[in-house]
């Protein structure tokens, strides 16, 4: 059996090591806090972990491939809103849960694939196209709900337990299964390596004969598959779907987790295991802030600061290499 981590760069291995230590330290702190209070237990905290972190992790797995290929998708929050509206509309019409789940996941998958296709077709930077998609998809979700039901009250209330199964009951299972598939694919598959190659040097890939547009599109399509599961677990884990507020800031939480996990924001480097550990770390930071008694008004600011610090640290350590490339 060959070393599964052989393809990780030394800096990525260091990051994985740091994140394992950081996650354990934060979990240790939370365990310590739960022992001091009677109304919370660490077992409950662990049981909530899977369903709560699944959307960010699943979306992060998809985004890892896109960022590794040198692009980005800022519209994932908006796509989840459209998927949420589709789910809400079908729920209101009492369509069976299985069809609602399938429609929700397929909508997200199709829109992500559409992003990839449009970027390839229009030859516009992914960052700009998906920035435009950020409000566009949110608007589509909102108007779709209003168009189907002109008296739409602004939110869908999901009361029936059968419609919550993927998020509340199987969120953790879906997440771990998707993570296992992704890691195995990364170790044995060829496609993730082509994304890394594309992110490292698009020009070299072109000279090698690789069809770069198609490769980037495959990253968006794969991201769509993960994003479909992310949308499904996110939407079915809540009691209301409010298109105007759903998944606000979701994209940055996911990007923060992916970058923290060692994926280079400029492309060419990244791993699924790192992303998983990065997303888990940010989740445990959020929980630790709650146990530390930090006011809810401060939490967003602190989490924003943590994400900026993480991305800033990542960019600063890649700065020297980038400067050398510029001079070359």
């Amino acid at each position, binding site marked *: 059996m060959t070393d599964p981590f052989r393809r990780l760069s030394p800096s990525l291995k260091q990051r994985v090591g740091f994140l394992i230590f950081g996650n354990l330290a934060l979990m240790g702190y939370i365990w310590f806090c739960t022992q001091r209070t009677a109304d919370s237990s660490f077992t409950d905290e662990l049981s909530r972990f899977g369903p709560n972190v699944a959307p960010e992790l699943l979306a992060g797995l998809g985004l890892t491939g896109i960022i590794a290929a040198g692009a980005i998708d*800022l519209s994932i929050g908006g796509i989840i809103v459209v998927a949420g509206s589709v789910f809400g509309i079908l729920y209101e019409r009492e369509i069976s849960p299985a069809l609602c789940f399938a429609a929700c996941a397929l909508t997200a998958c199709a829109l992500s694939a559409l992003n990839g296709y449009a970027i390839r077709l*229009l*030859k*516009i*930077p992914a*960052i*700009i*196209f998906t*920035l*435009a*998609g*950020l*409000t*566009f*998809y*949110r*608007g*589509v979700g*909102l*108007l779709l709900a*209003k168009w189907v039901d002109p008296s739409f009250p602004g939110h869908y209330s999901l009361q029936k337990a059968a419609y919550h199964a993927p998020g509340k009951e199987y969120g953790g299972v879906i997440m771990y299964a998707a993570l296992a598939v992704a890691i195995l694919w990364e170790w044995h598959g060829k496609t993730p390596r082509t994304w890394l190659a594309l992110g490292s040097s698009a020009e070299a890939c072109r000279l090698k004969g690789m069809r770069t547009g198609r490769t980037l599109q495959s990253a968006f399509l794969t991201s769509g598959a993960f994003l479909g599961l992310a949308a499904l677990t996110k939407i079915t884990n809540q009691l209301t779907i409010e298109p105007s507020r759903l998944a606000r*800031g979701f*994209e*940055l939480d996911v*990007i*923060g987790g992916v970058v923290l996990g060692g994926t280079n*924001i*400029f492309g060419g480097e990244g791993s699924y295991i790192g992303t998983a550990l990065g997303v888990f770390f940010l989740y445990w930071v959020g929980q630790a802030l709650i146990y530390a008694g930090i*006011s809810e*008004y*401060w*939490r*967003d*600011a*602190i*989490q*924003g*600061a943590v*994400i*900026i610090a993480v*991305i*800033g640290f990542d*960019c*600063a350590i*890649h*700065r020297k290499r*980038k400067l050398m490339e*510029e*001079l070359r």
Partner: protein
Amino acid sequence: MRTLILPLLLAIELAVFLPYSGVRFDSWQAFSSGLGYYLSDIVVLSAPLLILALGMTIVLMTAGIDLSVGAMVTLIAGVMSSFEPGAEFWLKAVPLGLLVAIALGSFNGFLIARLDIPPIIATLGTLILYRGLCSVVLADRENLSPVPAGMGEFPGAALMALALVSLGGAYFARSRLRREILLMGGNRIAARYAGIPVHRRIVQVYALMGVLAFFAALCALAHDGSVNAGWQEGLELKIIVAVVLGGTRVDGGRGSIIGSILGVFLVTVLEVGLIGIHHSDWILILLGPLLVLGVWLNTHVNAALRAVRSA
């Protein structure tokens, strides 16, 4: 070509939306007074956008972007709204607001210039951070504006925007700074070799964006009369769309302040028009395709035109 297309598009927008904006066509007197009110409304609503578009044009010229402007405007307004109107506003709120504005803008510049974070990622991060700070400053409150109401009405807001955009724009158009910024946006390595202090200039440009966010906050706060933590959400995209439609390239090296002014009026007339026909949510859908269209025109169509001319 764009200087012809944009006024034409604006005229078409006005022709489409005027009948739904309360302007009456039954007599010349009713029409002229209605049109006067409508245009003064458009100018007042455009004032903060015009001020911010000036800064965003300069930021985009450096191949940067600032997604945190909406959050900056809210945070600056939130800080100023904690003071009473009158002397306390002028003596404490204004200096403190200006100081906060420079600090927020400079922080963006620091992240981009010194840590080398891509501008879109850095300012997306500070958008979340500054929005979080808005929640800290304002909590769930709706603070009343201490800014004199005249700054948010016609002609106060219009004069402020006109002074900043015309004087600032005229100075900038003739300054050495503009040429340096265009060179930085076009080819950063060449700019560095030409002796331009690239990092310092980037910090200065983002600090300037902060200062302009301060003036925009004054206008918008005076106009709206109150501020809460979610105030001005989505403002950044409106400004970027306006500036890009005006002909400024998102990858730097080219920009036009006059184009940005026309772009702001295009976006404002569209937004007010959609409100007039009771379809205000459509602005969310239209801004995205407008941004894509602007970028596509700026890159592909301009390249094709240049190729035709050179042939």
